[in-house]
């Protein structure tokens, strides 16, 4: 009755058994399969997912007091593999009639995860960044929203990056 190693179950014949060529082949194939698996793990580890967009295009028009979803090319990112992802974004606001604060938020599947809100009471807007590590599952959709307090409306762009920290097999 053949046995196997305790960790990877490499097969081997027991002492006293008739040994055929199949025993050699089975052991060699089992070792080869494990080495191929390690090679695949190494490749995935060295080639972790990275994605980014310089700016969403065209700009998104945001009215004062309205949480607005950023639209346009590269305004969303579909997570390709489950893991812990570092998501960062920068909102580039326009110049509305008046503005006292501007907020950007990152969403996962349309649910807000984190964001950043800045005080702009001098009516001078400036880029607003938000960054955080969150767990994402394959297929999750990352998107962004903008909200500001003031009057009028403004056009905004978003730049973002998504980097996988840890892959969850």
């Amino acid at each position, binding site marked *: 009755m053949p*046995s*196997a*190693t*305790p*960790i*990877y179950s*490499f*097969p*081997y*014949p*027991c*002492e*006293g*058994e008739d*040994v055929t060529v199949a*025993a*050699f082949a089975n*052991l060699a194939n089992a*070792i080869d399969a*494990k*080495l191929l698996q*390690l090679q695949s*793990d*190494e490749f995935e*580890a*060295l080639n972790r997912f990275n994605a980014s967009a310089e700016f969403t295009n065209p700009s998104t028009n945001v009215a004062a007091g309205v949480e607005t979803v950023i639209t346009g090319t590269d305004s969303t990112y579909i997570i390709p593999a489950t893991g*812990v992802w*570092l998501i960062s974004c920068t909102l580039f606001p326009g110049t509305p009639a008046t503005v*006292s*604060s501007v*907020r950007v*938020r990152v969403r996962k599947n349309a649910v807000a*995860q*984190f*964001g*950043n*809100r*800045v*005080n702009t*009471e001098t009516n001078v807007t400036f880029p607003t*960044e*938000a*960054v*955080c*590590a*969150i*767990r994402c599952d394959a297929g999750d959709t990352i998107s962004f929203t903008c909200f500001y*307090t003031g009057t009028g409306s403004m056009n905004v762009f978003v730049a973002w990056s998504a980097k996988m*920290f*840890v892959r*969850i097999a």
Partner: protein
Amino acid sequence: MSDLNCPSPSALGDVALQLQQTALQAEAKIFTQEQLLRRAVNNPTVVTTTTSTATGLPASVDTPINGGVNATMSTIFNNVAFTDAFSAFDELFDLGGIIACGAAFNVVASGAVTDNSLRLTSVGTYNRSTGIDLLRAFYTNYETTASGGVDISIQGVFAVQPGEGGRVLFRHENAASTLNMSTGAIFWATRLGDLSVVKVV
């Protein structure tokens, strides 16, 4: 040259034993390589979150918030076997090395907002024995009365000596009321690599 045993001419009858030894020796070698691979690529990482509102953050005090303050917490991800969500962020810094870390949270005044009052967040290391802050990254914000709460996010990368602690501090100057930290605050830390001293010759 491999140190896997080779069969001897006088041991042809022990072919089964030889194959067993070969299998066990190959397993031991591959296991070692696999552990080294996993250690190299599976960066120790923790991500925790609050699952209730943290209430009564006082003004003019640097409050550590990575332990949830008085909120309940849960672990989103942890590959370092820290069992306590409240202390996992701090404990990861025990490993030392190059550590990236950060936090994202929302704070809302429990009562009135003092217009344009300070919201100061910092993340970094501290001496566990003395409690003194060491390396820190700061983010400064101010809340307007029109805001209705402030989203905050911060990150930093630090060279950490083994045994140092890590924490996220929050301070506000909203004299009109205390602040509450909303459910869903996120605290994260990941060890990017070893501390190394590069000698230039």
